[in-house]
């Protein structure tokens, strides 16, 4: 019987195994950011411990950096976290892409773009969206601060072996349907904890045809389905993306690694604990209307009603969500008006996402009364977008063009959605208060967000493309 990539990577990283204990796994890459690391470094200091492998550790600041006037940080506590990270990295010898670095950006955007993220690696970071890196065929998952300290000190982590779930998406996606819609569709269909206890391997024709950017978008939101990690077996698309990147193996070494990486892909006859099969043709552009990512529906449909749910707990969740969102049961999704648009976050802030948004808004204007923001995922994405002239297209349409960071994905900096207002957001979480107290978040793809910016409400971009091509 064949093995899945999940089992293969796992077995290759077991340092110690003992009856009645989790496995001790070796960690190949530890990414660090300013919010979840200060307590870990101070823990090391207290016990006089060192970072075991600074060369396998990489830090950046992203969560609370300003995306405008970068050097005027009024929030003293945020500033304190940033300078604390600088001090910690200097003291413990960890490489840092700080606020002035051309490589600064959201930790899950820069790992891949610098080539740090590679197939077969075990990757951890004190952030739940570490699952993003799984797109490269890495086993990547978020950890808490105690674990950050543990990995810094030992380069290992105690883990129980997760179960494996193969999620196969066959067929083709229709025009206007993106990777973001695929993952939102999955969450709408299977809920926010179908993946708990599992690592998901995304497979099938749809995934094979995806670019690395699209694969990252899907893997990114694995955690929204409860799975700590999601991954895709590496293939030529993966290798091509990595070739020549700053921290990827270079020259002959790269070819050697490609041979090794190829052996990691799941075997045809690999066994899984669970298999789910979907059809790409069934997926429409999606819009979330509630307060968790499974509360999502196709753009051309309506918000569910009480009758659609059976259990009391589902009914009361619906009621609570709609109250918070200021929406009604049965309301048409396209009738939801928005006042803010956020294109950014580790889900959708890479170059392809910005291209998709620019394509929709080119030559058009942001609807009056709508504030629209584009926050590139990294300084490198920003630079490339500017070279392609995408910033011009967006700013001419009325978008604000910002510096890289997490920004309005969690609004730890000054980028906040005011209470009661609606935001079409390309981020990954629509929890109560995520984008600011009382803020109402709708999760969508970059193209859908861009279209909503132009119209002031959600529109089915499939209709737009037909209208245009007529």
């Amino acid at each position, binding site marked *: 019987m064949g093995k899945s990539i999940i089992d293969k990577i796992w077995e*290759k990283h077991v*340092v*110690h195994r003992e009856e*009645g*204990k*989790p496995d*001790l796994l*070796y960690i*190949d890459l530890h990414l660090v950011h300013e*919010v*979840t690391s200060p*307590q870990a470094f*101070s823990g090391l200091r207290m016990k006089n*411990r060192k970072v*075991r492998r600074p060369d396998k550790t990489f830090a950046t600041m992203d*969560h*609370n950096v300003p995306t405008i006037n970068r050097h005027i940080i009024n*929030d003293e*506590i*945020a500033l*304190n*976290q940033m300078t*604390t990270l600088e001090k910690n990295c200097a003291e413990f010898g960890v490489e840092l892409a700080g606020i002035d670095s051309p490589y600064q950006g959201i930790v899950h955007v820069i790992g891949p773009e610098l080539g740090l993220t590679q197939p*077969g690696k075990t990757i951890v970071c*004190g952030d*739940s969206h570490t699952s993003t890196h799984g797109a490269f065929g890495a086993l990547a998952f*978020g*950890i*808490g*601060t*105690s*674990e950050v*300290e*543990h990995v810094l*000190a*030992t*380069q*290992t982590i*105690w883990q*129980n072996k997760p179960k494996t779930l193969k999620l196969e998406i066959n067929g083709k996606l229709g025009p206007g349907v993106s990777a973001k819609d695929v993952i939102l569709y999955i969450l709408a269909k299977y809920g*926010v*904890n179908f993946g708990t*206890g599992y690592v998901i391997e995304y497979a099938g024709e749809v995934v094979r045809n995806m670019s690395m950017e699209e694969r990252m978008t899907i893997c990114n939101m694995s955690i929204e389905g*409860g799975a*700590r990690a999601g991954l895709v077996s590496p293939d030529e698309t993966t290798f091509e993306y990595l070739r020549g990147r700053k921290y990827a*193996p270079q020259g002959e*070494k790269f070819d*050697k*690694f490609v041979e090794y990486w190829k052996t990691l892909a799941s075997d045809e006859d690999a066994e899984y604990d669970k298999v789910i099969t979907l059809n790409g043709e069934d997926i429409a552009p999606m819009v979330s209307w509630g307060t*968790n990512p499974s509360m999502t529906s196709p753009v051309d449909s309506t918000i569910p009603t009480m009758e659609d749910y059976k259990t009391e*707990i589902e009914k009361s*969740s619906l009621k609570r969500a709609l109250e918070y969102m200021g929406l009604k049961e049965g309301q048409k999704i396209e009738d939801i008006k928005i006042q803010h648009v956020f294109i950014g976050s580790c889900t959708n802030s890479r170059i392809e996402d910005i291209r998709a948004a620019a394509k929709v808004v080119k030559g058009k204007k942001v609807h009056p009364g709508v504030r629209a923001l584009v926050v590139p995922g990294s300084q490198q994405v920003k630079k490339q977008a500017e070279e392609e002239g995408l910033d011009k297209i967006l700013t001419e349409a009325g978008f604000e063009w910002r510096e890289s960071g997490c920004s309005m994905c*969690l*609004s*730890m900096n000054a980028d906040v959605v005011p209470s009661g207002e609606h935001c079409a957001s390309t981020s990954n*979480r629509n929890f*109560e*208060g*995520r984008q600011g*107290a009382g803020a109402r978040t709708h999760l969508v793809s970059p193209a859908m967000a861009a279209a909503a910016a132009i119209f002031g409400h959600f529109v089915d971009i499939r209709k737009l493309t037909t209208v245009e091509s007529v």
Partner: protein
Amino acid sequence: MSGFKEFTGKAVAMDRANVDTDQIIPKQFLKRIEKTGFGKYLFFDWRYNADGSENEQFELNRPENKGASILIANENFGCGSSREHAPWALLDYGFKVIIAPSFADIFYQNCLKNGMLPIPLKQEQVDYLLEKGKKQPFVVHINLEEQKVTDGDGFEAEFEIHAYWKKMLINGWDEIEITLQLKDKIEEFEKTKDPYTIL
């Protein structure tokens, strides 16, 4: 971390499903660089009104519910962001034990690593505790060695916990210390198995 064998405390009910860590501790409070002091921000958006006064509608604000150390909640507790500030906030507020039908993976581990015990029970068992707690808080007894929860009213439930975590909690051990005892094995792994050394 001190050892944890048995625990008796006041249990309160919070009948909400999918309580995410953004709700447990909103992000504006993540900017501290210490582990303590998060308790006053626990469930901030539910607990306080916009003017900073206490929201009387919120379960934990009922006068009789104050000083509780056991929280009973509904399914998928602790989902969302991996922030360890969530267990820190619950602990700092005074909770030592959380009972729910299910927990998000990362949150579950984060609790254990901070000496807090998450107890998964069957839905109908949790429903019983929730209904009881909605009327008034009550005393719950937890025996970690026997993996049992009792309420002094005849309710008794067994719960699961990995033997490893049980031992860690009971002894109050520091995980890093245990791992560093395996230093030779880590070194050997780096020399003989790490593809970045051998390829």
